[in-house]
């Protein structure tokens, strides 16, 4: 079966035994990942687990120490241009040109990506209206709030309608309405046959948005599947994603101990 972006049976993102070391720091260890067309894959993990490193390696910004990555069958190390032209990326902290306005920035991105003007204008117009950007569209990005910068980055990631979206904490700083819009956009993208790698550490977001979730911990994917499948992997077999996550990462006891210590410290003076 074919989708807009190619065969439905071929993964759009694939990593095999992906390992990344920064000096003595082991960021990723033998990471295996497959994101199929139409999938929204949630990469869930605590801070420093390796989510951003995974995304940067897939994008080709970071070279793997060993193992390999394929995006739409292209290797980001050997064919960086092909890979980057098939990806829409939103960074954890939106990186944009501060002195440019959103309009200038989008013009720059659209020019580099050689997109069709009419198609870009249609898409940008709709997205900018949806995100209520009229008052900010010609203001320097440096003067915008975090949420507004995130919206600019999101529009830029969609401007060329790529098959693959790499979204690193894309809801950072967004208000409820915009968050909802982004979740819907991600869903539309998957319905069209695109693949989304959605990194987050917020369980509720992963529960609401993702069709499959990979729990990454200390650079390894320790569990993978739908929410139901993940629940089945824990002893009790139930609970929220947060509870499942804490069980799988064996952090449940640690969190309980920490909370007990904090409670004692917090109420120490009052007890006296």
């Amino acid at each position: 079966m074919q989708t807009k972006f190619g065969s439905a049976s071929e993964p759009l993102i694939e990593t095999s035994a992906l390992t990344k070391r920064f000096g003595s720091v082991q960021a990723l260890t033998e990471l295996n990942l497959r994101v199929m067309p139409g999938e929204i894959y949630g990469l869930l993990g605590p801070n420093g687990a390796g989510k951003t490193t995974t995304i940067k390696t897939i994008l080709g910004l970071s070279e793997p120490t060993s193992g390999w990555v394929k995006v739409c069958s292209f290797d980001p190390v050997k064919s960086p241009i092909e890979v980057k032209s098939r990806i829409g990326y939103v960074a954890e902290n939106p990186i944009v040109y501060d002195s440019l306005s959103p309009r200038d920035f989008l013009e720059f991105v659209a020019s580099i990506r050689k997109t069709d003007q009419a198609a870009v204008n249609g898409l940008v117009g709709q997205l900018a209206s949806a995100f209520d950007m009229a008052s900010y569209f010609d203001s320097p990005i440096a003067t915008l709030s975090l949420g507004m910068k995130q919206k600019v980055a999101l529009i830029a990631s969609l401007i060329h309608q790529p098959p693959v979206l790499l979204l690193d904490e894309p809801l950072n700083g967004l208000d409820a309405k915009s968050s909802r819009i982004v979740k819907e956009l991600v869903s539309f993208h998957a319905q069209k046959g695109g693949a989304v790698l959605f990194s987050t550490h917020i369980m509720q977001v992963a529960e609401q948005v993702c069709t499959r979730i990979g729990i990454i911990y200390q650079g390894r994917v320790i569990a993978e599947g739908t929410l139901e499948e993940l629940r089945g992997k824990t002893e009790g077999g139930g609970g929220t994603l947060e509870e499942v996550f804490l069980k799988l990462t064996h952090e449940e006891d640690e969190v309980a101990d920490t909370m007990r210590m904090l409670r004692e410290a917090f109420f120490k003076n009052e007890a006296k």
Partner: protein
Amino acid sequence: MKPSEAWRLSRIPYREMVYRSLAEERGRMWWGAFGRNRPGKEAQDDLELTKRALRIAKFDKSVVAVFNVIVSLAPFASLFLGGSGFGLTSAISLSLAVTFGFTTLYAIQTLSSFMSPESSALLSTMPLERDDFSLITLFSFIRSFDYMVIGAIISQVALVAYLTASPTATLIMLLASAMNAVFAVAVALWFSRIFQRNMLRGGRSKANTALRLFFILMWGLLLVGVGFLFSLPWYIVPNLQSTLLGAGHVWSSLLGLLYPFTSGIIITGAVSSSVTFATILLACAAMVGYGLLAVFAGKWSLGTVRRVSQGAGVNVARVAARDFSVKTRGPLLGYVYKDLKAASRNPATAFFFALPVLETVIITLLDSNFGTLRTVLVLVGTSLGGVFALFLPLALLSAEGKGLEYTKTLPISPRRIVVPKALIATATYVPVPLALAVISLFKPLTSPAAILIPVLTTLAVASASVFEIKLFLRTAASGKIASVINDFEKLTVGMLIILVPEVAYAATFLATFNHAFSLSAMGGAALAELAVAFYVLRRS
């Protein structure tokens, strides 16, 4: 709070302000290692880099202060060099004028960051009295120009005291220098406010573009003024002196009403009988007016600083976009537009676009002083212009800042980053061959072939720009982000590349005494450099 304590605390917002200004100008500090970052190392590098950046800022501030002292003293040099006539009036007037210009333009660079309340955001969360907080902010504001203002005041006052041996004249000079500093800072603050307001408001108005062009032109004029610095003692001061005092016409007395001349006339009047009573009277009346204006400017500045410290520096309404249309271009043109916009909107990098004005003026003045356009003159003039053009790629790299992190995620080769900047830098050099071509219409050349020298130098400028940028990218790629602070290495390489074809010309001429051969050698060297630059680009 004691003023000494407030002065000590003011170092925190001041350092933040300097750092922000530096971060804008030297945004490439955060470019990282092009995908080869090491988390621990990176953080350590950033810390070292921050310390180093602040050390450089302090050094820059000291150098600027020393330069300001030299600038303030230069007009007085005619009095020691035996320039025609007693030039005290014009020396004082010009000294005040140039220090005013230089202080203003330097302060604009720093105060643009000051206008943002973010510089004192941390302090504003502390349990400080409102007055104490205002005092700290005021001191942090003063720290940004203290060295240069104090240096200029001391040097001007000391020199007038030495030259006149008159306490009255010295006192008037002290008053005039202080007023001058107040005016300069107030104008800088006013201009920074406008710049910040326009930045915040955004919009696509022609007025914004005109403001940026005006700013760039102002920098160009200042640079030209600096170029004239060495002409001050010999030509300008004596001539102005005779205009001010020699003619005795009513209009020359009226010059005493104009700001920079007022103080000079009063001081000269206090120690010499060469000034008419009417002129002194008019100047004194004007001085009282300027004194009142200085009090007003000082109060306005303090009020503005206080408002900034309270987070009410600039209040503006944003201009709503009428449509969301986006104009797409080819990748190269898109990048050129982006580079031009990013660099021209930042006060710290915008002034580099003024360099072509300076290049052209210098070449024109240099050549117009001679009856015949000698080849050696053309060689010197064109290479000098080329050196100025080399600052532009570095300014464009500065303007990239953190944005390059985003560009790295786009389907773009490093070549695409280099070529637009090299093209812009080369384009700014084009006025030089054009100016020479125009001059050659009026003045004979020792060799007609000399007209091609700047054309060939244009090729060398293109090659030098490519190598400068490539050198930066290579340094960044190997992870040595700290080294990118220092532009000296890149400039040196760029200058050498520009000089090689010139040296080829000179050496061949010395060997053959034939301009055609020399030009061929120069062309060969310039083309060879360009070929290497293309090769390097193709490998990117």
